């Protein structure tokens, strides 16, 4: 039982508990805050896996930008709670059953079939050097330069699309 394994188990419990908290909270604000905690936990997993750049990107983009957008929209709409009017009474137990079956099935298949030989080594001192970051940057800007540029176009398209979606026509009347 190494310190890394203990860290992993504690973090795994926190991740699953926050995900379940997100799923079961009645109030959408609580769900969003649980999800922020889940994203931060996953960022710590990235640190354990020796990917500090991805961990920081996760915190800034997910826990920072995306969740602030979520909280902003929840508060803008004032839709924290929905009245409880379930149309299909059998939907909830069926959904839970299907999700449990999916989890067991995928975990079993991944455990038995998709098994790469190897352990995740705890990150050593060399992972936090400039050299590692430089190698990541070289991979990103040499091997994956075209996808990188396409991503920038995608973000531009998303930005224009959002502006077009929420734009009001002149005179306050929506088209």
């Amino acid at each position, binding site marked *: 039982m190494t310190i890394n394994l203990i860290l992993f188990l504690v973090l*795994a419990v926190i991740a699953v508990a926050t995900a379940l908290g997100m799923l079961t909270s009645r109030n959408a604000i609580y769900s969003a805050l649980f999800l922020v905690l889940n994203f931060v936990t996953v960022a710590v997993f990235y640190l*354990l896996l020796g990917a500090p750049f991805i961990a920081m990107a996760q915190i800034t983009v997910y826990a920072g930008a995306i969740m602030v957008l979520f909280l902003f929209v929840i508060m803008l709409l004032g839709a924290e709670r929905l009245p409880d009017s379930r149309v299909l009474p059998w939907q909830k137990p069926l959904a839970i059953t299907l999700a449990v079956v999916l989890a067991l099935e995928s*975990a079993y298949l991944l455990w038995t079939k998709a098994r790469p030989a190897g352990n995740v080594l705890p990150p050593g001192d060399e992972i936090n050097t400039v050299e590692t970051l430089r190698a990541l940057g070289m991979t990103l800007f040499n091997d994956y330069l075209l996808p990188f540029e396409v991503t920038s176009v995608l973000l531009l398209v998303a930005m224009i699309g959002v502006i077009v979606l929420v734009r009001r026509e002149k005179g306050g009347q929506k088209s």
Partner: protein
Amino acid sequence: MIPVEYYIILSAILFAIGVAGVLIRRNALIIFMSIELMLNAANLAIVAFSSVFNSFSGQVFVFFVIAVAAAEVAVGLALIVEIFKTKHSIDVDQMSSLKG
């Protein structure tokens, strides 16, 4: 020394919780959050494999997934705001007509 299977199983559990969220909840915003949770679970698996194979490609993929998720959230939330303006509700059970 953590076997990579532990990460993969954690990723599978988080993904299944996301699926359950999409299926159970009727609040469109929480369905969106569940989709983010599933993207995160997939990212975790990719980074775990990238760490095992000692390659940076997996981390670059995750970087792209994060960028695409940001774009997706912006468009999706704009759609939800528009739906709320016309229907005055974000209950997905109420979104049963194609015409606004």
